[in-house]
C-alpha cells in the first residue's frame, strides 16, 4: 500500500476530527441539563391537581402565651395538601408551614419548643442574630420522650441536650427582615424539613413601616417548596432509613439533592390568590431542599410584570432594583413589590419558574378581582443603614465540592466533611473578612450569625439580585463569589454550610468559632 500523502492524511484527519467533534458536542448537548440542575427528581405516585385551583393559604400568626414568650409543640399531624388525599406531616404546632412569628427589632423573645415527634429535633432561626446557645447547633438536640436509640457516629462533647423541651431566646437586635425557622438536626435536616418542619419569622421596625410599602392584606409571605407524594398519600423521600433514627443519608442517585414534582406555596399545590389591581409586597422564601427557581410574573397577554426588589435575605436594600426574572436558591429570600394595576379585572398573573420543566415550571397565580385604591409607594431610598466594610483583616478561600466520606460519597468544604468536634475557622469578634467561595455544582452557601455583602461573582461585578445584605449566596456550577462580612454580635460556636439540605446532611458544613 502506498504511503498516504500529507494532503490525504489531513483530509482524513479533518473528516475524522469533524465527525468526532460533532458527535461529542451533540452528545453533550443531548445528555446535559440545560439549564444546569443539581439533584434528582422524585415522581409522585398519585394524580396531581390542575394548577391555580387551590386558594393560597396564609400561615396563621402565632399568639404569645405571655408578652415576648411563645410556645410551639412539634408533633405529627395530617393535612390535606392535595385535594382528597391525607398526608401525614411533622409539624410545628400542627400545620405546614408552621405558625408565623411576628416580632419587633430589638425586642427579645423566647420560644419554647416541645418535642412530641418520634426523633430528636433542634430549631435554628435562619438569618437570626442569635447567641450561640440558642442558634440551634446540630447536636444541641431536644430528645423526645423515651428516646433510646443513639446515633454515635460523631460524639460532640460540647453538645447541650435537653429532654422534651427547650427554650430558645432571640434578642432580634437586627435589621427588619423575613427570617425562617427550621429543624437543623445533624445528619437528618433534609428529611425533617421535607416532612414539614419549617415556618416563618418576621422582624419589623418603625422605620420600615413608615416607608408606605404595601401592607396588611397586600403583604404576602410566600414560602415555596417542592415535594413528591407516594401512593399512600405520604410525602415521598429517598431516605436510607425511613424512620430517620439511626442511618442518615439518601439513596445514591439522590446525593445531588432531592427534588419534588409538586410545587407548594405556603403548603398548597400551585395555589391561586385573589388580589386587588394594586401593588403587593411579596416576601418570597425558597424553603426547598435543593430546587432553584428563576421566578417571573407573566400576565395573560404574555407581558412580564416587573419584579421590583426592595429587600434581600437580611432586610431592605438601599434602593429598589427592578428585575424581569429573579433567581432564588434554597434558603434565599427576596422582598419584591409587584404592581397589578395594569392587569385587567378578571385577568391572571402567573408566577412561573424558568428553571423548571413541565409542572415545575409553574409556581402559583394571582387573579385580579377588582379595582382598588392604592396609597402604597416604593420610595427611591429604602434604607440608609446598610453596612459597608473595607480593609478586611483576612482573606480565606473555601471549596465546596463532591468527595469521599468515611462511608460512601458526600460533600466537602475544603476537602473535609463536617465534624462537630473540629474547629474549621476561628475569627475574633469584630473582624472583617473576605471569603472567596468556589463551587463545583450548585451550592447555596449560608453563614450563621453574620450577614454579608457580595463583592464579586466569577471575578466580575455582582449580579443585580446580589444587592443588599445577604446570609445565603447561591453559587452556580463552576462559579465563585467573594463575600465580605464583619463577625460581630456574639462569641461562640457557629456554622457555615451549604443550604442544599441533602448536601448539608452529607458533610457540607463547617464550624466557625468566634472568639
Amino acid at each position, binding site marked *: 500500500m502506498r504511503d498516504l500523502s500529507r494532503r490525504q492524511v489531513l483530509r482524513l484527519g479533518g473528516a475524522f476530527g469533524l465527525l468526532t467533534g460533532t458527535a461529542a458536542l451533540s452528545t453533550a448537548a443531548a445528555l446535559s441539563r440545560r439549564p444546569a440542575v443539581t439533584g434528582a427528581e422524585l415522581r409522585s405516585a398519585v394524580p396531581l391537581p390542575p394548577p391555580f385551583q387551590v386558594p393560597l393559604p396564609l400561615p396563621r400568626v402565632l399568639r404569645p402565651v405571655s408578652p415576648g414568650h411563645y410556645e410551639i409543640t412539634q408533633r405529627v399531624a395530617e393535612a390535606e395538601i392535595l385535594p382528597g388525599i391525607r398526608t401525614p406531616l411533622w409539624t410545628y404546632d400542627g400545620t405546614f408551614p408552621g405558625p408565623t412569628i411576628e416580632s419587633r427589632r430589638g425586642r427579645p423573645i423566647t420560644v419554647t419548643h416541645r418535642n412530641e415527634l418520634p426523633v430528636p429535633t433542634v430549631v435554628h432561626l435562619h438569618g437570626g442574630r442569635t447567641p450561640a446557645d440558642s442558634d440551634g447547633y446540630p447536636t444541641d438536640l431536644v430528645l423526645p420522650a423515651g428516646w433510646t436509640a443513639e446515633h454515635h457516629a460523631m460524639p460532640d462533647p460540647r453538645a447541650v441536650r435537653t429532654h422534651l423541651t427547650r427554650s430558645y431566646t432571640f434578642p432580634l437586635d437586627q435589621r427588619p427582615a423575613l427570617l425562617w425557622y427550621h429543624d437543623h438536626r445533624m445528619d437528618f435536616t433534609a428529611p425533617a424539613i421535607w416532612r414539614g418542619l419549617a415556618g416563618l419569622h418576621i422582624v419589623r421596625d418603625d422605620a420600615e413601616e413608615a416607608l408606605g410599602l404595601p401592607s396588611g392584606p397586600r403583604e404576602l409571605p410566600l414560602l415555596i417548596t417542592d415535594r413528591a407524594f407516594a401512593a399512600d398519600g405520604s410525602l415521598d423521600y429517598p431516605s436510607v432509613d425511613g424512620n430517620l433514627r439511626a442511618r442518615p443519608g439518601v439513596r445514591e442517585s439522590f446525593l445531588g439533592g432531592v427534588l419534588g414534582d409538586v410545587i407548594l406555596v405556603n403548603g398548597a399545590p400551585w395555589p391561586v390568590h385573589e388580589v386587588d389591581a394594586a401593588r403587593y409586597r411579596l416576601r418570597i422564601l425558597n424553603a426547598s431542599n435543593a430546587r432553584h427557581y428563576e421566578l417571573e410574573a407573566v400576565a395573560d397577554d404574555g407581558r412580564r410584570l416587573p419584579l421590583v426588589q426592595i429587600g434581600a435575605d437580611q432586610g431592605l436594600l438601599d434602593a429598589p432594583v427592578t428585575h424581569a426574572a429573579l433567581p432564588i436558591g434554597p434558603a434565599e429570600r427576596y422582598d419584591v413589590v409587584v404592581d397589578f394595576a395594569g392587569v385587567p379585572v378578571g385577568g391572571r398573573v402567573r408566577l412561573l419558574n424558568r428553571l423548571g420543566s413541565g409542572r415545575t415550571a409553574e409556581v402559583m397565580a394571582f387573579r385580579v378581582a377588582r379595582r382598588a385604591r392604592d396609597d402604597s409607594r416604593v420610595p427611591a431610598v429604602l434604607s440608609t443603614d446598610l453596612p459597608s466594610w473595607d480593609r478586611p483583616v483576612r482573606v480565606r478561600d473555601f471549596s465546596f465540592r463532591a468527595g469521599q466520606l468515611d462511608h460512601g460519597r458526600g460533600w466537602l468544604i475544603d476537602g473535609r466533611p463536617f465534624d462537630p468536634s473540629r474547629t474549621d475557622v476561628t475569627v475574633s469578634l469584630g473582624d472583617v473578612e473576605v471569603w472567596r467561595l468556589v463551587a463545583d455544582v450548585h451550592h447555596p452557601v449560608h453563614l450563621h450569625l453574620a450577614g454579608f455583602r457580595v463583592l464579586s461573582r466569577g*471575578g466580575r461585578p455582582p449580579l443585580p439580585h446580589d444587592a443588599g445584605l445577604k446570609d445565603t449566596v447561591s453559587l452556580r456550577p463552576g462559579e465563585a463569589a467573594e463575600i465580605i462580612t464583619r463577625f460581630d454580635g456574639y462569641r461562640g460556636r457557629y456554622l457555615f454550610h451549604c443550604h442544599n439540605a441533602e448536601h448539608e446532611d452529607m458533610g457540607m458544613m463547617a464550624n466557625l468559632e468566634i472568639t
Partner: protein
Amino acid sequence: MQRTGGTSWALRAVAGAHLVAIAGQPVFAGVYLSGDYDGLRLHATGADVVTSLGYVQLIAAIVVWVRLRRAWPFFATTAVAAAETVQYFAGLDGALWLHLPLGVLTVAGLVVLVVALWRRPLEDVDA
C-alpha cells in the same frame, strides 16, 4: 526536501506557543475547582492569551497561504480559532456542558495541527 523559510518558522513558532498556552487551561481550571480562587484569574488570563495566540496564528497562516500557496494551515487554524472563540463565551456564560467537551476537542485539534506543521516543511511539494 526544501529548507524551511522564515514564514513557515513564524507559523510553527506561534502554533507551538499556542499549544503550550492551551495546555495550561485545564490545569488552571483544576486549580480553581480545588478551591483556589486565584486559579480562576489564571484560567481567565489564560483564556485571553490562548484566544489572542489563536488570532495571531491565523494571521501567520494567511501569510503562509499568500507567500507559500499553502491554504490548509489557514483553514485548520480558522477552525481552532472559531472553537476557541465559542469556548471563551461558553466559559463566561458558565455553560459547562459545552465548555468541557469543546475544550478537550480544541486541545486535541491543536495538537494534530501542530504535529502536521512541524512534521514536514510547508515548502514541500505534496506527493
